[in-house]
């Protein structure tokens, strides 16, 4: 087991900057999720930790030791690839034991560890098959087996679930989490799926354009996104970002006026600001009391209903915790729950913290 420390890590391909200088500490035994849209540099960062990409500047440490010039094979890491990267000419057993063979592990020890890993992942009946005779979920488990058999100091996951169907993905999510609880191994997990990030990470790192946007416990990031990008990226359906402006002791959104409740008007608020409202915090109100909107899409999910409404050219999403007999074209009136509204500066795009309530 080991911690991973990145200080001022950068990656350039010629003049193209992929990673802009990242400082990040991953504690021993922690499960950290790197999340962001495609092209944000999260996979590159992971591959730099793995030793598959060189580090242009800065320093990476694993277990306190600088690894910038240590080849991947000597970093004592294991990695699960998005497309599994199983050796097609080897059986499941040979795939799992390959790393032990490379390290000249004695036969008895090797067999014991392979059998243990196979048992843990329910692969025992499949040990003599080749990868092509396995289903996607089974291949995924073999890839996991190959990683855990070695008992490495750090596990790296590069979007390991994105080739699986939705049901299997949820299952494997739980299984990886359970494995981590059991092995307590330092893990870095890359995904573009914010649901995976929210459910799996002890800590999530939201990235965009090679820059870390926010680091924190998933629920803290959800509750207090530090900027507009994180606000829009974390949470599903996404947060509604409503342009607003201060109006006396209240504020206006799309022509409707709302009063500050609780602590009153926050200080340091520019005249124009953006009110971030989670879909579950947007409510229907009596006609004439809120913002007039037209229902455009209704997605009944059984227990919940998601509706997309239009205010002029702007679309907002509302999540109802029940069934709603809404029809497309209905006129509705919506209002944010002011207490839970996140405030952002449209110039700097960063969060405006409310004064602590009195």
């Amino acid at each position, binding site marked *: 087991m080991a911690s991973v420390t990145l200080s001022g890590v950068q990656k350039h391909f010629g003049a193209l900057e992929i990673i802009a200088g990242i400082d990040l500490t991953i504690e021993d035994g922690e499960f950290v999720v790197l999340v962001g849209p495609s092209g944000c540099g999260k996979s590159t960062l992971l591959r730099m930790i793995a030793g598959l990409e060189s580090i242009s500047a800065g320093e990476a440490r694993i277990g306190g030791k600088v690894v910038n010039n240590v080849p991947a094979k000597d970093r004592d890491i*294991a990695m699960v690839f998005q497309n599994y*990267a*199983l*050796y097609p000419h080897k059986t499941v057993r040979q795939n799992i034991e390959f790393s032990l063979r490379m390290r000249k592990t004695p036969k008895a020890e090797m067999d014991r560890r392979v059998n243990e890993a196979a048992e843990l992942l329910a692969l025992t009946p499949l040990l003599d098959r080749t990868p092509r*005779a396995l289903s996607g979920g089974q291949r995924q488990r073999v890839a996991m087996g190959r990683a855990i058999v*070695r008992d490495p100091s750090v596990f790296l996951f590069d979007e390991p679930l994105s080739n699986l169907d939705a049901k299997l993905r949820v299952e494997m999510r739980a299984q990886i989490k359970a494995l981590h609880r059991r092995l307590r191994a330092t893990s870095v997990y890359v995904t573009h799926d914010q649901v995976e990030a929210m459910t799996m990470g002890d800590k999530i790192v939201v990235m965009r354009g090679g820059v870390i946007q926010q680091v924190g416990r998933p629920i803290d990031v959800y509750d207090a996104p530090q900027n507009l990008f994180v606000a829009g990226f974390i949470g599903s359906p996404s947060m509604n970002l409503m342009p607003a402006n201060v109006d006396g002791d209240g504020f206006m959104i799309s022509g409707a006026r709302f009063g500050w409740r609780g602590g009153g008007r926050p200080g340091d608020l520019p005249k124009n600001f953006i009110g971030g409202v989670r879909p579950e915090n947007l409510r229907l109100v009596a006609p004439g009391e809120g913002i007039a909107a037209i229902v455009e899409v209704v997605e009944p999910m059984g227990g919940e209903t998601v509706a997309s409404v239009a205010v002029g050219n702007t679309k907002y999403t509302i999540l109802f915790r029940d069934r709603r007999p809404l029809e497309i074209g209905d006129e509705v009136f919506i209002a944010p729950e002011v207490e839970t509204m996140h405030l952002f500066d449209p110039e700097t795009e960063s969060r405006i913290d409310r004064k602590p309530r009195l």
Partner: protein
Amino acid sequence: MTDNSSINRPLGTRVVAWGVLLLITLWAVLPILWSLSASFKTPLTLYTGGFLPDDPTFDNYRRVLTSDGFPNYMMNSLFLALVSTAITLFVSVLAAYGFARYAFRWRHILLLFILIPRILPRASLIIPLYDLVESLNLLDTYTVLIITYTATAVPMATWILIGFFQAVPKELEEAAAIDGASIWQRIWKVVVPISLPGMVTAGILSLREAWNEFPFVLAFTTSSDMRTLPYQLFLMRDSMGITDWPLINAFTITTIVPILFLYLLFERQIVNGLTSGAVK
């Protein structure tokens, strides 16, 4: 979808297609069949009677197998073919890996350059090579034949292997690197086994070239100990006054059999889609 599309084609189209295929097959196979048939005849019955020998005789084969030096020529051919193929594969794997995995300046030009030994007519190489070989004191040795056979087979084998190596997903090598494999182990334990069909193809082609090679062995060797099967076949025709065609054909068939046996042995190894299941 393409697999069963022929089922729906009209009968006429299918008849024409099969007719063309049959013609091409006959074109390729008839000479061998004729040779096979001739090898069981006698010089007297060669041009009389039908395509099949009326009274097949194994006498020609007995004479080939018991002729002076035949086991020696066979061993020479086998030795030269196997050794030069092994060296060819070893060199080509390393060369092809470099071309397949690294981007470097002049890569494409270099790739064309290595074809030169194959573009030049072999006959035009003989005299300058002879000079060189003589000054190196290598005339009439296995070494010179192995070197020349390897040198002419490497370009072809490299070109074949590059394509196969490029098809090996890069992640497999990355996974192997993380699993603790050195670049050497990645090549021989991951890339090469996955490219088995390519290895077999390149191997058989270079084996066949060395097995059938004639101009170099004629030019660079003199002693009868060094003769290979094609060389002996050539001498048989030259030195016997009246050409004994059935005997020559028996010799030809005997020469073909080992290589044919190898083809058949390895054909089963060429399993397509070996990489399926590796990724995704």
